C-alpha cells in the first residue's frame, strides 16, 4: 500500500511539474508587493538598481513570474522560458499558414494567406539585454509603435509601475551607462556609411535628415510564398529583418550606448550581419546617437464620424468589424476546448472577461466587470459615448501617444480601426442594434 502511495505521489508530482509549462493562471506577486531584493551582503535595495549579480534567487523567480503573468512567450522568444504551445502562440499558426504547413485544406490556406498580414514576426527578448532598462520600463507602461514595418505593436498591458520595474530588470539585468565618442568627424563618417550601406532600405529614422520613407517602402521584402519559402531562406530572413527593423530615432534612448556599436558590428536576432569593421560600427553608432532629430509633431486624434442615415444591420457590422477583427481574441470558448481567446478566457495578464464578439447573442451578453456580474458593452459613458465605441476611439488616442483613463484602446496590439468602421458600430448601436 505504501509503495502504491509513493508511486502515485511521484506520478502526480511529475504531472504537476510538466503542467507548469502550460499556460495556466499562475499565482503572481500582488501589485505593490515587495520590489526590494536582498543582495549577497544582505542589504535590501530597489530591484531596478542592482545588476544580475545582486539579484537573489527569490527576485529572479518573481521577475520570471512577470513573464508568465503577462505571457510574453505567446509572442516573443524569451530566454529561460519554454515557447508557448502552438495554439496559445499568437504567431505560430500564422507562420504555418504562410509556410503551407498548417493542417488545413490547400484552398483554405490560400484564402487565409491573403487575409493574414499581421502577427507574423515578433522580436526575440533574448537580445533585450542590450536595451536601456529605463526605456524598457517606459515602453512596458506606455507602448508605442517602434517598428514601422510591423503591423503588430506591443499591446498595452494592465501592468503596474512596480511590475514594469521588475520585468525591465529581468530583461536588462546589467547596464553599461558609459558614453560613446560622438566627435563631429565620427558622426559625419557614420552618416556617409548610413547612406552607402543603404540602412534606410530597412530602417526609418524619422526626424533625421537621412530619413527616406520612399526608400524604406521600396526596400520591403515580402515573405516568399510556399514552396519558395523552403528554397529561399535568405529572402525570408530579409523579410523578417525588414518587418522588425526599428525606427532609429529611438536608438539613443532605447539602446545602451556601449552596446550600440557592438550590436551593429555583430547583430543578433533578425538584423543581417553587415560585415563592417569595428571602427565603422563605432562611426555608425555615433551618428545614430548624435545626429539631430526633429521633435515629433503632436498627432491629432481624429474625431468620430457622424451617425449614418442609412440602416446598418448586424450582418454588415459583424462582417466589417467584429468578425473581421475582434473575433480573434473575443471568441466562443465552447468551440475551442474552453478557450475563447485572451479577450474572453483571459491572457496577457488580463482576467477572463467572457466577452464573445463572434455572434449577435455573444455581443449582446456583455462582459464581466471587475466583479462577477455581466455589464453591457453598449452602456453610455457620462459623455453619451457607448462603452465599446469609447474603447475603439481610445486606440486612436493611444496611436497619437496618449491614453484614456480607465478605457483601454481596442484592438489590442494592432492598429486602430478606421473611423468608417467605428462609424458602423456607432450607427448600429444608435439604431437599436438591429439584427
Amino acid at each position, binding site marked *: *500500500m*505504501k509503495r*502504491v*502511495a509513493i508511486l*502515485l*505521489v511521484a*506520478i*502526480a508530482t511529475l*504531472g*504537476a511539474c510538466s*503542467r507548469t509549462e*502550460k499556460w*495556466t493562471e499562475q499565482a503572481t506577486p500582488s501589485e505593490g508587493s515587495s520590489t526590494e531584493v536582498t543582495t549577497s551582503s544582505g542589504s535590501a535595495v530597489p530591484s531596478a538598481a542592482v545588476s544580475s549579480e545582486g539579484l537573489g534567487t527569490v527576485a529572479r523567480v518573481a521577475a520570471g513570474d512577470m513573464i508568465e503573468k503577462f505571457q510574453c512567450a*505567446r509572442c516573443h522568444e524569451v530566454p529561460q522560458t519554454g515557447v*508557448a*504551445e502552438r*495554439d*496559445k*502562440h*499568437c504567431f505560430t*499558426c500564422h507562420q504555418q499558414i504562410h509556410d503551407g504547413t*498548417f493542417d*488545413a*485544406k490547400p484552398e*483554405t490556406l490560400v484564402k487565409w494567406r491573403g487575409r493574414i498580414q499581421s502577427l507574423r514576426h515578433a522580436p526575440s527578448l533574448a537580445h533585450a539585454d542590450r536595451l536601456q532598462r529605463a526605456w524598457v520600463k517606459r515602453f512596458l507602461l506606455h507602448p508605442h509603435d517602434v517598428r514601422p514595418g510591423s503591423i503588430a505593436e506591443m499591446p498595452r498591458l494592465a501592468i503596474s509601475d512596480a511590475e514594469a520595474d521588475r520585468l525591465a530588470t529581468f530583461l536588462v539585468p546589467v547596464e553599461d551607462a558609459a558614453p560613446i565618442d560622438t566627435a563631429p568627424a565620427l558622426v559625419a563618417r557614420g552618416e556617409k556609411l548610413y547612406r552607402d550601406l543603404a540602412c534606410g532600405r530597412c530602417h526609418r529614422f524619422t526626424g533625421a535628415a537621412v530619413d527616406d520613407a520612399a526608400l524604406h517602402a521600396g526596400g520591403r521584402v515580402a515573405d516568399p510564398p510556399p514552396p519558395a519559402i523552403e528554397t529561399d531562406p535568405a529572402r525570408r530572413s530579409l523579410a523578417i529583418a525588414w518587418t522588425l527593423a526599428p525606427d532609429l530615432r529611438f536608438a539613443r534612448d532605447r539602446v545602451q550606448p556601449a552596446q550600440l556599436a557592438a550590436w551593429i558590428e555583430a547583430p543578433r536576432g533578425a538584423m543581417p550581419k553587415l560585415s563592417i569593421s569595428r571602427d565603422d560600427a563605432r562611426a555608425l553608432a555615433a551618428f545614430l546617437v548624435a545626429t539631430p532629430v526633429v521633435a515629433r509633431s503632436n498627432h491629432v486624434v481624429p474625431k468620430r464620424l457622424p451617425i449614418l442615415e442609412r440602416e446598418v444591420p448586424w450582418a454588415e457590422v459583424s462582417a466589417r468589424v467584429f468578425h473581421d477583427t475582434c*473575433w*480573434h*481574441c*473575443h*471568441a*466562443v*470558448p*465552447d*468551440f*475551442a*476546448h*474552453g*478557450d*475563447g*481567446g*485572451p479577450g*474572453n478566457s483571459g*491572457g496577457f495578464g488580463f482576467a477572463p472577461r*467572457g466577452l464573445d464578439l*463572434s*455572434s*449577435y*447573442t455573444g455581443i*449582446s*451578453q*456583455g462582459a464581466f466587470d471587475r466583479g462577477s456580474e*455581466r*455589464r*453591457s458593452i*453598449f*452602456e453610455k459613458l457620462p459623455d453619451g459615448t457607448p462603452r465599446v465605441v469609447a474603447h475603439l476611439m481610445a486606440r486612436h488616442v493611444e496611436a497619437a501617444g496618449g491614453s484614456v483613463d480607465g478605457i483601454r484602446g481596442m484592438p489590442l496590439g494592432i492598429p486602430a480601426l478606421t473611423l468608417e468602421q467605428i462609424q458602423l458600430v456607432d450607427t448600429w448601436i444608435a439604431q*437599436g*442594434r*438591429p*439584427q
Partner: protein
Amino acid sequence: MPGRLTLLTTTALTLIAALVTPNHAAACGNADRMEHDDAVKRIAQIEFHLRYEQHWLADQALPTPGLGTWGTEELEDRATDLRYVLDLRWKKRKVGHAVEWFRERPRKTLEHRAWLAEALVENDTLHEARTILRDLDKRDVMPDGHGYATLARITQGDERIAALSKCRKRAVVKSICGAAPRTT
C-alpha cells in the same frame, strides 16, 4: 489506516486533476475551427437554423442528446442546449427537463438564463421568468429577440409595448414577436 486512505484519496484526486487538464486550446479563438472542425461547423449550422426558425432543419442535424458524438464536453453541452431550445420552440415538449437543464447546466451564460425563462413560461412559472427577463432587460444584456418576445408574452401595458419594440429590432424572424400572451 484512515490516514493512509486520506493520503491515497488526495493523491488519486491530484493525479486525476493533473491528467484531465486540457492540453489543447485555441489562442486565436476559433477562426480555424469554424473552417475545418466538423463538429463545430455542425453546431454553428444548427444555431443558424434556430436563428432563422428553421426548426425542421435544426431537428435533422441534431442527434439525441447524450450520445457523445460531439467530441468535447463543451460541444456536447451546447448540443444539449440546442435540443432543449428546439423542443421548447417547436414541439413544446420536455419542458420540465429543459427547466432543470438550464438551471443546473455547468458554464452558464446569460443566454442560458434567457432560455431558462423561456422554459419557465412553458412550465407556467411566470413570476420567475419575469424576474429573469426584467433583470436582463434592465442591464441591457438580453441575448436576442427571443428574450424580448418572451418578456412581451408575460407583461402588459407599456412594458409589453417596449419589449415588442425591442423584439422587432433584434429578432431575425420578426414573426416570433407576435406570440400569444401568457398571463396569470
